[in-house]
């Protein structure tokens, strides 16, 4: 990477791409700085801020939801994606593969067996990525609070950016949740994925407590 040249401020290749609006954590490491903590190269702050804002605006406007229904809440995603509540009005679309998705909707209760698949899928999604937790089961166990094979508190195992309460939340509630998520992304505050990478050991410990036949790698992609 070249050093920032004040005479050529339009040259975006000199910008550190981890820059985000004031007070927020760095976003989306790209190019040659794919790893955490690398590349805090000082450059024209106002321009960086402007570029980061534009990037976050783009990110908020193109959310790709992973096609992964964990519980009964997945039934709400059908009316949301089809003509009545049409989520593509907001720039939200579906993605069949975790490699092409950046939003993970945990739709309802999560059994420990599914949790393992969810973690695997979540870690394969490219950064930045966000998690929307749908329904009361993800918050405190909901009606499955005394079940032997469903987890109660989702954010012990994954970072959650938006919680949507209800049992079941209607598609309107989901749209409202997405609205919050978009505002957070634009402000640069939806940094759950970053929190996950920074506190990976803590998350791994919690995950291993419930997934007794652990066979996932200890690193994250």
């Amino acid at each position: 990477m070249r050093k920032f040249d004040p005479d050529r401020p339009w040259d975006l290749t000199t910008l550190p791409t981890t820059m985000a609006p004031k007070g927020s954590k760095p976003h989306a490491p790209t190019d040659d700085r794919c790893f955490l903590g690398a590349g805090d190269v000082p450059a024209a702050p106002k321009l960086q801020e402007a570029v980061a804002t534009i990037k976050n605006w783009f990110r908020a406007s193109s959310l790709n939801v992973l096609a992964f229904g964990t519980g009964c809440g997945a039934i709400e995603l059908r009316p949301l994606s089809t003509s009545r509540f049409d989520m593509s009005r907001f720039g939200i679309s579906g993605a069949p593969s975790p490699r092409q998705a950046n939003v993970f909707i945990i739709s309802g209760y999560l059994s420990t067996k599914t949790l393992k698949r969810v973690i695997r899928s979540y870690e394969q999604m490219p950064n930045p990525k966000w998690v929307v937790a749908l329904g009361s089961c993800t918050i405190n166990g909901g009606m499955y609070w005394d079940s032997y094979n469903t987890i109660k508190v989702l954010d012990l195992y994954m970072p959650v950016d938006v919680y949507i309460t209800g049992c079941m939340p209607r598609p309107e509630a989901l749209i409202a949740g997405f609205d919050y998520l978009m505002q957070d992304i634009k402000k640069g505050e939806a940094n759950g994925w970053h929190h996950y990478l920074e506190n990976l050991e803590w998350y791994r410990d919690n995950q291993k407590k419930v997934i007794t036949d652990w066979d996932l790698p200890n690193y994250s992609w």
Partner: protein
Amino acid sequence: MFDFNHSNLDENGNPGAEIVSRIHDRFGNFPVHVQKPDLIRLNVPQTDIIPLLSWLRTETPFVQLTHLTAIDWLEEDEFELVYLITAPSLCISLMVCIRVNREKAEAESVFNLWLQAETYEQELHEMFGIHFPGSPRQGVPFILEGWQDMPPMRRDFDTVEYCNRTHPERPGREHHDSRIYVGRKFGEKGYLK
């Protein structure tokens, strides 16, 4: 093959009378309970189950194993295995029930009569801890992964205790009755309205 058809009704109009009298002639007087006109329950000693099911499978219209499940009679220290055998041509089902000891839970496999019994027996082994010698996939994990406790469908398995031990509550949660929270916020009247 016997000639079973709907014209063989008893005095109450139940089509199952024919098969019950055949079974009584052949295997002895088992207790019979007609739960519905098309659902007959038979309580069979454990030793008679394989001859009875083989005979039903090969020589009568009762050719289909619809379900195989277990009931935990904790107080009597026994498991009850229920084989639901259906005659598709007559639309009648037989519930053939046997009792097995709860401590040494073991029953003969019917895998040789119905291949699909393999899956049922695998599940019963996992959920109730009933062993079926000779059945394939015994002890292979089916639904539970990495389960280290006692089989969870046994009635002496304390689900709430296990759940509290394994899955922690969210801090601040006092009770599981939503009526308390709603009542606190809106008043009990507001909840009942």
